[in-house]
């Protein structure tokens, strides 16, 4: 007994490790410089910019129609809202309004894309915390959504489907049948996910009470999307500042309670059910008519002015600030990228956590590095 007390105390040093940029759990090229003391994180420094392509600058030397192609490359797992937000901003500048059929198609594709994006999150988040099976289930369904998109516009990830003044292609009767079939197939799957992962005791133990973000903190950090709603703050652009006719759809905004990783996860899973409701309503009401508004020039030259448009993207409040000087390209385009703003809280949140929780917290923020870096 007394011998142990006489031993010299163990020497402990701080250890610096790099997580990423090429690490599967960082969901892209995010580098985290972690300073550890044993298993505790003393300091975490996120390093971004590996995927910076300067799309804001590129937009200044391209025509408005070309810019839609650039937008696909931000959040490449949910590109429809990106297309939409740029088109909404440019349409505001030009004073054009999309026809009713185009609006319904926009809503439908954006909500399908939200499901695809949340499915990817559901699958990869399971892997992040050690459950491999949900990934295979999620990708089975996601594949069907991507097939639908491929049938619609020929692309699986970068769609360029939503165009200035409407949408690029009309849907066929065959597509509508397949979309309805998919929804019928998808609805019972959501209950499966709950039994598979949501209420799995191991998963809950791993994510509940981890990475807590209070409502006041979430607002102060400027979080948006499921990250903000996971903390119980009811802010959804579709309800607060409706666009494309969202005010006429009947849906709810799922909210979390304590702002833990599990709450953010649950918000996303519940959102898929609301997305299905919206798609069903859009399918039921899909009006006949043109899909493109008349009066959008091949080389648009909107009058000088400034606009801001924002949509509820899959990751949060996605906004575009557009300045026109009357020329053929946007004079200035700024993207309010939800992933970028959401990620900023990581530095403060990670300090004081255990290493094992890093991936659980990072995964629950659900970032796409293409959008963080732009």
């Amino acid at each position, binding site marked *: 007994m007394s011998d142990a007390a006489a031993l010299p105390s163990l020497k402990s040093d701080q250890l610096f490790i790099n997580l990423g940029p090429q690490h599967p759990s960082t969901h892209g090229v995010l580098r985290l410089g972690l300073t550890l003391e044993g298993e505790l994180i003393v300091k975490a420094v996120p390093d*971004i*910019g590996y995927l*910076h392509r*300067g799309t*804001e*600058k*590129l937009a*200044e*030397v*391209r*025509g408005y129609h070309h810019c839609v192609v650039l937008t696909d490359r931000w959040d490449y797992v949910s590109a429809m809202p990106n297309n939409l937000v740029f088109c909404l901003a440019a349409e*505001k*500048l030009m004073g054009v309004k999309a026809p009713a059929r185009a609006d319904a198609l926009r809503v439908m594709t954006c909500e399908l894309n939200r499901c695809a994006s949340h499915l990817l999150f559901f699958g990869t988040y399971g892997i992040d915390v050690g459950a491999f099976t949900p990934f295979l289930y999620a990708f089975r369904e996601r594949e069907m959504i991507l097939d639908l998109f491929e049938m619609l516009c020929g692309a699986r990830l970068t769609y360029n489907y939503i165009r200035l003044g409407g949408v690029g292609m009309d849907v066929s009767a065959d597509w509508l049948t397949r979309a309805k079939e998919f929804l019928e197939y998808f609805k019972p799957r959501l209950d499966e996910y709950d039994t598979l992962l949501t209420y799995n005791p191991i998963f809950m133990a791993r994510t509940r009470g981890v990475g807590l973000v209070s409502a006041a*903190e979430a*607002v*102060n*950090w*400027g979080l948006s999307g499921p990250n903000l709603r996971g903390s119980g*703050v*009811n*802010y959804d652009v579709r309800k*607060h*500042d409706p666009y494309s006719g969202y005010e006429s759809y009947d849906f709810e905004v799922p909210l979390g309670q304590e702002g833990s990783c599990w709450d953010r996860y649950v918000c996303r899973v519940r959102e898929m059910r609301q997305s299905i409701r919206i798609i069903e309503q859009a399918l039921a009401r899909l009006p006949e008519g043109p899909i493109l508004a008349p009066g959008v020039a091949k*080389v648009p030259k909107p009058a*000088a*002015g*400034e*606009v*801001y448009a924002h949509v509820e993207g899959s990751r949060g*409040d996605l*906004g575009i*600030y557009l*300045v026109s*000087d*009357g*020329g*053929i*390209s946007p*004079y*200035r385009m*700024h993207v*309010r990228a939800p992933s*970028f*703003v959401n*990620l*900023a*809280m990581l530095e*403060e949140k990670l300090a004081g956590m255990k290493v094992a929780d890093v991936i659980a917290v990072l995964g629950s923020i659900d970032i796409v590095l293409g959008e963080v*870096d*732009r």
Partner: protein
Amino acid sequence: MTQDELFAKIQGQFPQVQKAQIQVKDYLTVRLSSKDDLLPLSSWLKENSFDYLDMLTGTDYLGPTDMKGYISQPNFNPFLPEGATPQIEPSAAAGFPYRPVLDLLWSFVSLKEKQRVIVKLELQRDSPSVPSLTGLFKAADWQERETYDLLGVRYEGHPNLTKILTPEFTSGHPLRKDYAHVKDRFDE
């Protein structure tokens, strides 16, 4: 609360704050006369339910970007023979007030009132500096670093004003209109 009521409320507190000449469509846009008003106005907005700093950015109004260096083939028509005079070249739009200023923008949102107010401030292009909002809104942290990196605005009082998006070895601020790329080891 309508835009006019909101503006009247702001002007009741800060009579020097004016409505911007060019409004951001659909949202109330106000212009500050000096950067000393920024911090009092933001903290007043924060106390009056505008506690969500949505976005901050800026615009360089020097003149349109020179296409050279960004587009290898400036002809928008791919069927034109090589060397033909470009059909369309963006040039300075007639009548647009280009001037050597940086126009900064902050966008505050009230989640309760479903309102947005956009605050603008013009600064001279050479060595622009403005107080940082990081003390009030943590959301300002990375977005100010981004604006510093891409536009070269110094935010006084920011705890860690360093580059965030562009690599360490590059110089200059890419979103400035006179930015020229300096060849580095990654160019061929």
